[in-house]
């Protein structure tokens, strides 16, 4: 498990990092927490000539309040996001998802931006980001652009970030007062989800007034269960009503088949987990 040789660069500003990317292009890879990249290098699935460590760019760390949204710096570690009060208050779904993300060691090194840039459809942050209509702030030599979550995840482990760009932060519109739950289905504790459902709902006297449901590992990218979201509006937060709405959770999904379950089983799981996630989010 020895990676091929590479040169290591450690810029301290975004501009320096972008300049390095521009210079080395295809031959360079960004390293954030390294929790996904290092296994890739060690198993020699990739052998970049340059590894650009963005860990020393202080401006990429931390969570801030920006009016209607909170802004999570790309280099903020899972642990820091998980215990951040702003996130807990305005994007509870993210806090909930991080509780079960990997193990303590990985959470201490892995980063919010790195996980989303890696875009593993089994990653725990994609579905919450999608459900919360997050905006991805991507910086290139021409400056900053914002990409909606729905456009960010393009395909299996492929995002809207171009080779010469860096994901600098993620903006999450505030969902203050929304109930949230992340229902993750695994065989052993520290595992990527076989299927997971991210649900956040706004309730009004026992009735669901708005709902957002994201699905993890039900296709090559994180998905929204829009038909469930629509069916939930105006429904009481009861087992029966939610069960009926959740029945369509797997519609239009294309989940993988692997050791942990085939596609049909995953589709079945999606409906059960959606019901459980929504009920828990609604506090029922």
């Amino acid at each position, binding site marked *: 498990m020895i990676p091929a040789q590479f040169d290591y660069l450690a810029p301290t500003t975004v501009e320096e990092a972008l300049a390095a990317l521009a210079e080395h292009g295809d031959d360079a*890879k960004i390293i954030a927490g390294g929790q996904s990249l290092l296994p890739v290098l060690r198993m020699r699935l990739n052998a970049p000539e340059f590894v650009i460590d963005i860990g020393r760019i202080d401006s990429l760390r931390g969570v801030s309040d920006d009016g209607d949204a909170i802004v999570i710096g790309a280099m903020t570690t899972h642990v820091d996001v998980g215990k951040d009060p702003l996130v807990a208050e305005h994007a509870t779904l993210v806090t909930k998802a991080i509780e079960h993300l990997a193990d303590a060691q990985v959470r201490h090194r892995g980063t919010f931006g790195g996980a989303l840039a890696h875009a593993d459809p089994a990653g725990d942050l994609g579905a919450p980001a999608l459900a919360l209509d997050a905006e991805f702030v991507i910086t290139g030599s021409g400056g900053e652009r914002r990409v909606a979550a729905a456009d960010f995840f393009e395909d299996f482990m492929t995002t809207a970030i171009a080779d010469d760009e860096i994901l600098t932060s993620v903006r999450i519109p505030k969902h203050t007062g929304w109930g949230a739950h992340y229902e993750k289905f695994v065989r052993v504790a520290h595992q*990527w989800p076989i299927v997971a459902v991210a649900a956040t709902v706004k309730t009004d006297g026992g009735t669901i007034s708005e709902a957002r449901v994201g699905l993890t590992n039900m296709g090559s990218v994180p998905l929204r269960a829009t038909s469930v979201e629509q069916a939930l509006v105006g429904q009481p937060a009861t087992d029966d009503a939610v069960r009926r709405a959740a029945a369509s959770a797997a519609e239009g999904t294309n989940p993988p088949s692997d*050791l942990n379950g085939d596609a049909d089983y995953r589709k079945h799981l999606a409906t059960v987990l959606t019901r459980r996630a929504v009920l828990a989010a609604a506090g029922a």
Partner: protein
Amino acid sequence: MTATAEPQLEIGRDRRRKEDQRLITGRTRWTDNITLPGMLHLAMVRSPFAHAKITNIDTEQAKKAPNVVTVVTGKDLGEEQGSLPNAWPITPDQVTPPHPPVAIDRATFAGEIVAVVVARSAAEARDAAELVDVDYEELPAALDLKEAANDTTLAHPDLGTNKSALWVFDSAEAGTGGNVDEAIQKAREGDGIVIEREYRQQRLIPAFMEPRSTVVDPTGEQITMWSATQIPHILRFLLAAVLGVSESKVRVIAPDVGGGFGGKLQTTPEEFITMVLARRLGKPIKFTETRSESMMAAHHGRDQWQKLTLSAEKDGTVTGFKVELLADLGAHVSLVGGGVPVLGAFMFNAIYKFPAYHFAVQTVLTNKAWTDAYRGAGRPEATYAIERMMTELAAELGVDPLEIREKNWIKHEEFPFTTVAGLEYDSGNYEAATAMAKEHFGYDELRAEQQRRRESNDPVQLGIGVSTFTEMCGLAPSRVLGSLDYGAGGWEHATVRMLATGKVEVITGASAHGQGHETAFSQIVADRLGVPFEDVEVLHGDTQVAPKGLDTYGSRSLVVGGEALVRAADKVIEKAKPIAAHMLEASADDLEFKAGRFGVKGTDQGVAMAEVALATFAAHDLPDGVEPSLDCDATFDPVNFNYPHGTHLCAMEVDTETGAVKMRKYTCVDDIGNVINPLIVAGQVHGGLVQGIAQALWEEAVYDDSGTLVSASFVDYLVPTAADTISFDVDHTTTPALTNTLGTKGVGEAGTIASTPAVVNAVVDAIRQFGVNDVRMPCTPERVWKAINDGGGGDKTTEAAAPHFDDSGETAIADGASE
């Protein structure tokens, strides 16, 4: 005489392990930590194909890479590399393919070594390995065990068959019981019961914590090999025998070894390659495998199909058991190889009084990693089969699974008992262990809860699983091994050395790799010689320090090695006696040895062992004709195996909506005779249980249909952690073994052997009302859910892994990867 308090006995004390500080703080020496001047490093080039002809290997590029010393292929090594040994040909006509450490013209499984790079650093060796260009011509691969048994595709075309050996035991032929076919026939035709099932023992990976590593130093008069092995003595013997080096010129050291579970009971291609190249180049060489290599190419365990037929009378009295196994050897017959299922052959009848028994195993060659011992080796397979079948019999009769067992088991007053497989069980008390387990578990309350959940159609159903196991361990009486054509004996050796300062060095031929021998053996010797626990040093794992031994596996170290130690210590006392008598000016007959002191009976005169040791060292005034040494050796060859037993009860919750299973309660009452160190025993039981539970629920080595190991990392090969298990309820009954002085029984494998069927029985019990009578291991949620919904549960899982570390859309590895 002054009254003195009895000193506290060491045996039975919860001693913290002497080993732990150095192991936990990492301040110890693992093989991979060893660095010698001028040492070279290896990287292996391995076949990506399950079966392929090697048509050409171009090493030119690799040889030119920085700091590469040489690159060798199987052809280059030729005869010099020898053929890896199989020490247990189970039949005289066993078909055994040659096994060169580096494949010569054909790769026979994905992961087999086809070339070796030697370089000045491990990184440079790895880089250069990527430059070795191998041309393969893919051949059809024998992968499925059942198909391979029909010779549909040949794993080794030259051999003309995949069938390696057929080994049979029949109680009618052996004269130990009746004819099983007649018993089954009678049950079928009369009003008896016949239960027929087919179970799959999935392939498992031992997954020891420390990957295998070997260092060879050829620069002294002796060639020294350090290796992360369970078997330094056997390794030394076989290196000498296979490579034609004088045994006296080889020294093997197993320093601290990070786990083995049978997985390091092997003489490996990597060890032989390191040895051969170090001798060739005259330089020290190290090879340490990566985790991926370990998963792919270190031996695997289990992998059987079990066809089982059990007959019984209508009242549940068993009349016959017929066992027909297919066992997957993988591409080579490994060190113990086909012997693993044979170690199970005597255990399918377990604790029950079957009047007729038949066992047959066909070992089969396939194009997968070789298989060999894995914790329990043969006995977990047997225990699984019988404990599942007894539960099925109970279900068929509609009676409690404990009731059917009690009806058929050997009663405690019937010991010693000769079984239908011809073994004599010396002692046991199944009634006592079961009664205690039931009480701890709250058996009746849990049964009542199960009933309530069934009646209310609770989405979470509860199941209770039983396993009343026994096993044979303490390998082994040499004569029995001889009668089974095993290539060695089963004795163990010990030496006790009395140092001048009164300290004691104990040398054992057992080779601990995590068991805590240094602690437990110190306790035994401390009591025996009456010296402080701290004054005993246990030395092991180096053929120059411990020249005789047969190493550690098969729960043998205490029951065989411990007995050798007791005998050596007793000899020391005998040898010290005349010297003590001389010092006390008394007659040896008037001396008694107690609490470390020779005392003159009826007086308060005496000398401590330490004083005798010093006097012997000085040798100034010894009786005539007495040699100035107290040191003694003993070699113990057991006359029988050792039979721990126990009752394990497991409650599992099954979420019927998802198929997820959750352990609710696990109680085990093991009878392992007298306990030397309860803390170590608890560790062995807990770890053993988890390993057995892991077979039931999580672990499986899966190959896809091109013969690639899919569960090739810990992302897909699910080894549980503490977060996945519950607190076990562990207790013991004590029926001392009669075959060793300490009355101890082996405990290293018991938990693993017993727990697997307890868990699966519980899962099946939770969902039997849906028409389910089996769920294939590991009981994944998918399988459980499908079983509930279509009564199946026997399906294979999809042979694909989730590619979390793919890097799609990125440039693939640039330089000329091998193929």
